[in-house]
């Protein structure tokens, strides 16, 4: 019998897991973005000629 990767998981669990993982990745992306943005002024000051 053909089995899909998510076949053994109930649909509600699939929805809930996707929702949680999606939100977690949004938060991760946000934190990386903040970190990159905080680093940018430092890079600017390092690059500024004396």
């Amino acid at each position, binding site marked *: *019998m*053909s089995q*899909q*990767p*998510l*076949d053994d998981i109930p*649909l509600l669990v*699939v*929805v809930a897991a*996707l*929702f949680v*993982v*999606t*939100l977690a*990745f*949004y*938060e*991760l*992306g*946000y*934190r*990386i*973005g*903040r*970190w*990159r*943005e905080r680093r*940018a*002024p430092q*890079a*600017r000051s*390092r*690059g*500024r000629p004396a």
Partner: protein
Amino acid sequence: VAGAPRASGEISGPTGMIVGSILALMAFLLAIAMGMAADRFDTRRGLVLQEGNAIGTTLLRGGYVPEPHSTQLEALLREYVPLRIVDDQEELQAQIARSVEIHDEMWTIAEELARESGERPVVAIFIESLNETIDLHTSRVTAGLYARVPPTVIWFLVAGVVLSVAMVGYNAGLTGRRSTITAVMLAVVLSAVVALVVDLDRPAEGVIRTSQQPLIDLRDSLDGR
């Protein structure tokens, strides 16, 4: 230039455009996956109707063949129809196995009829509809169990949704502005669409199921005879 200082706008500007492109690409991928799942769903639904018609025709034409074959065929078809109604995934394999046994029994009767009756048209059209019934069994098994959305597409979909939302979050991080409600709504909508694709691809489980109504109606009409 590598190592050159970057202004804040230089980081967030192109990123926003790229995030927009990624989301557009995700919408395209979701549409393709949804189309694949919906096509398969429609095929399964159509096959249930075709099978209901084919079994009904076999039953009617079986009434023309001589006794005792006619009664034997009716008894076999009465047992066959409930087996074709898929409502429990656990019993599916047993239902398929018994269906194949019934095919063999009906075909044995058809062979006897063909030998006894020669080339009588009544027997010929009965065998034709029995053949169609057996063929539709194979079509339904193939459509229900094997013709699924390829796993690669599902995995690409899940990975695409997760990564595109991460990019939306990244862009929000660069600009320093984010809305929790927007993030939650995005996650809800994307998860729901992926779940819809997964659900459409599960014939006998979930919220959206292939309607078995033509076969249920046939079973009820047989019970009333």
